[in-house]
């Protein structure tokens, strides 16, 4: 089975290593002796300039993985290192821009006060604090809420406040856990724009999300985990779609709409299924195969109106990976 072409694949990366998960495992033990393995034998390297997505179903171990990366939890086995030092040590020295899934800010604090406090702890110079606070308040549209107490903020505004505190400082590493949870469509789109603006060669961004569409749009690679195990790492986007895991790449379905040349389709795509109204479902195993066939189709006189993937590569890989583990 041919592998999807991957010109941007990460096998030959030369950028400096930033984050390394080395055979990381986390087992929770109860007082009664019961144990639950939240993460098992997780190994992954995340490099400078990369946006890595972490996808997985509920309880897959995403948040535990992030907690270990920030040093909030100690791995039962293995180690997490950032720039060659234990993760917690790195965080205490440098800080990380972190948005947690659960936005826990003292409800009695006012939004602006919370940001000033976090800016103080982040080591921002006294003279700079107000400027940085104003910047994130504007960036995240919190101006009209800055004097409100945290407990008075809506879910979406609280989420934006959480993101604002993560962006207070110019961090080299950003970790965003379910960043668009509770955001309306306008702010979801705005968030995506912000992440794209944050992309920088010397910055690494980790985004954990259930939202595959979001990861498809934002991430360079997506680590799919399920039941605490890394199932596969998928490079997103059709220009560099690929899988780094040992599993074989899977077929991708596209829906082709023809304006003319309906009679030619079976000659080029023998397995094409007629979906009616000039639309055909075809299965290919690589973009090269798709493009060659389309060129053939057009060369034979067909007029192609559209080619739409039935599912994104990521969605397809996710279904396959999670299905495999179950």
């Amino acid at each position: 089975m041919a592998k999807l072409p991957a010109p941007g694949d990460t096998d030959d990366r030369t950028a400096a290593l930033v984050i390394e998960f080395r055979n990381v495992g986390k087992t929770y033990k109860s007082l009664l002796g019961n144990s639950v393995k939240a993460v098992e034998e997780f190994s992954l390297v995340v490099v400078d300039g990369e946006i890595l997505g972490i996808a997985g179903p509920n309880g897959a171990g995403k948040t535990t993985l992030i907690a270990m990366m920030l040093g909030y939890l100690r791995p039962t086995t293995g180690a997490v290192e950032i720039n060659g030092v234990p993760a917690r040590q790195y965080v205490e020295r440098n800080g990380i821009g972190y948005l947690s899934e659960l936005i826990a800010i003292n409800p009695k604090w006012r939004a602006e006060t919370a940001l000033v406090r976090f800016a103080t702890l982040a080591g921002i110079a006294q003279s700079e604090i107000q400027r940085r606070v104003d910047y994130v308040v504007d960036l995240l549209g919190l101006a009209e809420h800055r004097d409100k107490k945290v407990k008075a903020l809506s879910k979406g505004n609280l989420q934006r406040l959480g993101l604002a505190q993560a962006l207070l400082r110019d961090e080299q590493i950003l970790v965003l856990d379910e960043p668009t949870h509770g955001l309306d469509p306008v702010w979801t789109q705005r968030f995506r724009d912000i992440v794209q603006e944050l992309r920088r060669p010397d910055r690494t961004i980790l985004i954990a999300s259930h939202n595959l569409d979001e990861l498809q749009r934002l991430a360079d690679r997506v680590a799919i985990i399920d039941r605490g195990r890394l199932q596969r790492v998928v490079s997103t986007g059709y220009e560099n779609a690929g899988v780094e895991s040992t599993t074989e790449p899977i077929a991708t379905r596209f829906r082709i709409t023809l304006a003319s040349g309906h009679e030619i389709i079976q000659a080029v795509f023998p397995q094409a299924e007629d979906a009616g109204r000039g639309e055909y479902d075809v299965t290919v195993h690589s973009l090269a195969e798709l493009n060659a066939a389309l060129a053939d189709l057009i060369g034979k006189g067909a007029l192609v109106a559209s080619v739409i993937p039935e599912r994104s590569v990521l969605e397809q890989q996710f279904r396959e990976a999670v299905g495999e583990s179950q």
Partner: protein
Amino acid sequence: MSRATSLARYSLWQFRDFAIDRGAAILIIGLLWGYALIEPIRHAVGPQVVGSASPLWVVAIQVSSAIVSVAVLVAVNGIVSADRKAGYYRFLFSKPVNPVLYYAQQFFVYMVGVIASMLVLSSLLHKIVPTFSIPHFLLYTALVYIAMGGIGFFLSVTTRYDWLSLAAVWLGARVLRGLYGAGNDWRSKLVELLPPVHRLDDVANSLIGTGSAHMADVMWLFGYGALFFALGLAALRWRSLAD
């Protein structure tokens, strides 16, 4: 800006938290308790010089020392565990902050807060009982904060129910020492390991009354609390920030 400087600057926020969340409660409890117990006796005794044999003096010592214990209990309740339970640690410690230094600073900021609260209350008491020494009382407050607060700090690092645990340890030590302290068997040796709360009454009487106390008693109380505070810091370094 260095991490130490930014953490030091954050102490002003910690003090503000203390004043709003705990200091006000300590003052209200102290005022109500003190007024309810001392005012009737003052009224009965009338305008006379208050000596150490005066019932007003005895009550003042008892009430003031009890208020210190309650103040320390209120101050260290949840000093670490509250952030863990509420999840506040997530944003606090994604910043370049060492949690051990953060909570050590918080412990001493709260100590300043307790002493400031006791300064207010003892100034009022001094108006009623002029022989009541404010400096001696503040010295006693500092000692009890270290002795009791150090254990409370350790319990807050290691358990979720630190308020309850501290009250149980404090009262339990008194009860067990009362039961077995005078004996010579293994139980009496075992209770020697408990917090030396039995020394507190003597220390309160002598330290608040005269400004001096048996050095051995003071060292026991101070050493016990300081040891547990240090153990709390070590546990904070060792255990996970998240539950």
